């Protein structure tokens, strides 16, 4: 019933897989800002080209990328249609009742659709080639400066790692609880809204109690092993920044420059 693969990480050995998670995170965040620079066919083509290059370098099967895109098809379609009918300008290409499609509207909706698709490809590439633990480590390292303003960065990252560890356990537990409550005659799938809401409570109470019991055990185990916070703590996986990471950042910046040049 629960075939959740946490994240979508596909282990492999490729240029993109080997990159430091920090450089990938920075690049993705830069990329989602520079997509706003694209405003004509040339700039959009450049972005699409960049995505294809990324996919090729990741050596991933295209079906993985397609799966990521398929789930958002509806969003792309709705956004496309809304932009198509709500924006104006240019010559009228088609009108039916109050609906009007203009040339500028059509162009804008196509560009927005491309924008969504490239964003999704790039973020899917990140999650396909970087394990959640790597992402957590990378974020902790990138957010380190926030410690100066008393943001508990280390604790937050550790919390994320613990959470990741326990999600499969809790999913299993939830499945057990559902079965146990169904065996006692609970019905989660039919009845009025009120009865369905009522049915959620006997599902959630054991989930909370069980989860918090685990948390207590875990806290005790951590203390017994001498966990004492961030200070002087060493890491199992050391992050290492090398020339590949610098190259990736350079490529993203080059894309930004090209987009700015091709804008006009």
């Amino acid at each position, binding site marked *: 019933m629960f075939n959740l693969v946490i994240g979508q990480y596909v282990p492999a050995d490729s240029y993109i897989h080997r990159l430091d998670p920090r450089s990938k995170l920075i690049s993705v965040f830069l990329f989602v800002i520079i997509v706003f620079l694209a405003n004509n066919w040339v700039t959009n083509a450049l972005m699409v080209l960049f995505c294809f290059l990324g996919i090729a370098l990741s050596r991933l099967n295209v079906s993985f990328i397609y799966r990521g895109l398929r789930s958002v098809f509806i969003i792309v379609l*709705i956004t496309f249609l809304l932009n198509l009918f*709500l924006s104006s300008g240019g010559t009228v290409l088609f009108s039916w009742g109050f609906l009007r499609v203009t040339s500028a509207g059509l162009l804008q909706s196509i560009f927005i659709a491309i*924008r969504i698709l490239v*964003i999704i490809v790039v973020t899917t590439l990140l999650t396909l080639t970087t394990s959640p633990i790597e992402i957590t480590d990378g974020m902790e390292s990138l957010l380190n400066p926030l410690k100066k303003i008393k943001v508990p960065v280390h604790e937050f990252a550790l919390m994320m790692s613990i959470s990741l560890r326990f999600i499969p356990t809790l999913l299993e537990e939830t499945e057990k609880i559902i079965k146990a409550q169904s065996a006692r005659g609970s019905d989660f799938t039919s009845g009025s809204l009120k009865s369905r*809401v009522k049915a959620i*409570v006997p599902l959630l109470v054991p989930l909370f109690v069980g989860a*918090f019991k685990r948390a207590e055990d875990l806290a005790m185990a951590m203390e017994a092993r001498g966990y004492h916070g961030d200070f002087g703590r060493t890491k199992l996986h050391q992050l290492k920044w090398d020339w590949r990471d610098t190259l990736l950042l350079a490529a993203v910046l080059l894309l930004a420059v090209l987009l700015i040049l091709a804008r006009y």
Partner: protein
Amino acid sequence: MKTVKMLAVNALLAAIYIVLTFFLQPISFSAVQFRISEMLNHMIVFNKKYFWGIICGVFLGNLFFSPMLPYDLIFGTGQSVLALLTTMIVSKFITNIWARMLVNTGVFTLTMCFIAWELAIVLKLPFLWTWLTVAIGECVVMLIGMPIMYAINRRAKLDKLI
């Protein structure tokens, strides 16, 4: 985060958030948001120490399930931080749990304007219409969540756990 126990409890709370998000994944992200795990936002009215767990849950939820990942990480998490802080401040003056939950629902519904703003920038969707649709989803989930979280608190004693 003062104690190890607080850290562990919040981590498990975030895991619960993900588990609940997973249950209703197909209708959790898009213009009409209907994320059942959002009712865990009410945890803040029982004990403000749950703050980091909720934030962590929202963050991981967006990391795993959101197609608009980078924007949702910033806008979605930012909205939760702001709304939770507002409820924490208001809770200093209100002691009734139901009133606090109602305030929390209102705050979260209003701050959905951040999500609408995000969608308006990225997808060029009309701001007010988007705000209305995302706010309705949030409001419904959080209203339904009120009696559920109240019942859970009565049995699991969420307010005294950490």
